[in-house]
């Protein structure tokens, strides 16, 4: 991804910004890399672990690489994990006011097409509001909905539908 190059100096700042909350994050989130599990174990014994911070930054970098946010059925709410991802992108945009993103909202095929177009729009708007709170400016953000018209997975069934209920964060340069 092209954006990765832009991220390298920024990641260092994320590390600083996240260090204060790193203890709680690693414990509540089971999706971390194998290395970070080790870090959280040792972190439980000692209050300040420099190595734990370094591993966290690794995980944040992977998260930042993810640009798709998924949603529950008929919902535009971000769960904790999605919120964290959106916040990272928001913070990045705040630091890089020249960068723009388009937030593309999508829905699964169930129910009516027009309502799903609305659902995609609301999902995109809901990601936008997280980005704005993190300091991104409105001029950096545009939203669009494709409803159920552009599925990521054209199959039918719960796993395909889960892939299709999404907002794609599309960086424009």
């Amino acid at each position: 991804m092209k954006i990765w190059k832009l991220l390298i100096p920024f990641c260092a700042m994320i590390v600083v910004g996240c260090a204060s909350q790193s203890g709680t994050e690693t414990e509540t989130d089971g999706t971390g890399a194998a290395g970070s599990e080790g870090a959280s174990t040792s972190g439980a014994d000692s209050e300040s672990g420099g190595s734990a911070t370094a591993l966290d930054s690794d995980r944040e970098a992977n998260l930042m690489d993810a640009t798709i946010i998924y949603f529950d059925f008929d919902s535009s709410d971000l769960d904790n994990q999605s919120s964290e991802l959106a916040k990272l992108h928001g913070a990045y945009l705040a630091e890089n006011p020249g960068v723009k993103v388009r937030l593309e909202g999508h829905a699964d095929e169930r129910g009516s097409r027009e309502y799903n177009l609305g659902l995609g729009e609301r999902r995109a708007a809901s990601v936008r509001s997280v980005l704005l709170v993190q300091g991104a400016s409105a001029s950096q953000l545009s939203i669009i909905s494709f409803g159920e018209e552009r599925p990521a997975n054209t199959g039918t069934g719960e796993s395909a539908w889960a892939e299709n209920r999404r907002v794609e964060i599309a960086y424009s340069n």
Partner: protein
Amino acid sequence: MRKQGGLRVIFARFNFIKFASLCLILCMTAGIPRVSQAELQIQITKGQGEAIPIAIVPFGWLGEGEQPYDIASVVASDLSRSGRFAPIAEDGMLQKPTTGAEIDFGDWRIINTEVVIVGRMSKLPGGDYSIEFRVFDVFRGEQLLGYRITSKPSALRGTAHQISDLIYEKLTGVRGVASTRIAYVNVIKDQGKQVYKLIVADADGENARTMLESKQSIMSPSWSPDGRKLAYVSFENNKSEVYVQEIKSGARRRASARKGINSAPAWSPDGKQLALTLSKGDGNLEIYTLNVSNQVLKRLTNWPSIETEPSWSNDGKQIYFTSDRSGAPQIYQIDAQGGRPERVTFEGSYNARARVAPDSKHIAVVHNDRGNYRIAIVDVERAYTRVLTDGILDESPSFAPNGETLIYASKNSGQGVLATVSADGRFQQRIAAVNGEVREPAWSPFPRN
């Protein structure tokens, strides 16, 4: 299974004439629409058993050479498609009369036929055709209806539909829909890429004309009340925009391309306004009305939830719409001039995309029935919901203008198909595309003379 394939072969010559003349007309105009042959196959899937046995005897030909057109088979196909009649096969007929005087009612009683239709066709000096037909009640041995109609050679198929509608109305008391049309979207995979076509065809799937071809999605076609224009949503510029297109000429213009969503167009019954959904780029969908002649835009709803899918009441005074302000989509109605919306549906966790029945007392909706999306009819006053279909992903219901039948989109083995269901739920047909998937059906209004 009953296909239209045989008809296509028999009428090949006629269709060529019509094709050629249409091409001539179209070449002189915008040139977007194109004619292709029947692209739909219709199959009865439920409820043929309750239909009335009827005989449409092949019409006599009083001219020279081969009969130019098989009116009787088009009429039989039309009446069968209504679900109310079961035409008997030609080889089951004990006699083939072409006038009332030739009918032996005993021969028809033996095979339990209740209605017999006979007719003849002749060529008039000047080239037009004269078609006469008579409808008889077998048990009373009485004529119920008789007409002589003059038809241009290029209009014979339309004349056959007109005859079907006269018979249908006489026998049921309800105006027939054989002369109406349907609009739908055909999605074809072409070398891995999707091609979307907006198509207008006769109600029997014949005379399909492509109004628009696009690499991006097309949805929500809506007929103007005079049947001359379609409003629809096209993503051809990579976002939702509303277009209005004249069916005959193919000429079109962009009706709304504001920031954000432009979608769900619905014509007011007087044809002067379009109700539509706009988000104005702020993520919040609201219903607006757009005056087609002076472009004045008026906002009708104002709520943080999704408001979309407007549908006018038949008197034009109310607009039904979908809103999830209660936490899930339900149908509401609002005065078309604005005001406070009232909730209409209460049964079930999902009711969306209302279409008002011609009787004004019912609306068709997409309804979540135990996890399946199905077409239901809601009695608006009594708030009573009746599920009509049995699919898992049924959507986009549209009433035939006589209210007897609905057409909707469904899935069959993962493929998008169209289907019809009678308003009482007893009779169902599946309409599959010969090529690709079909979706987003909209039934036209009655033709205006």
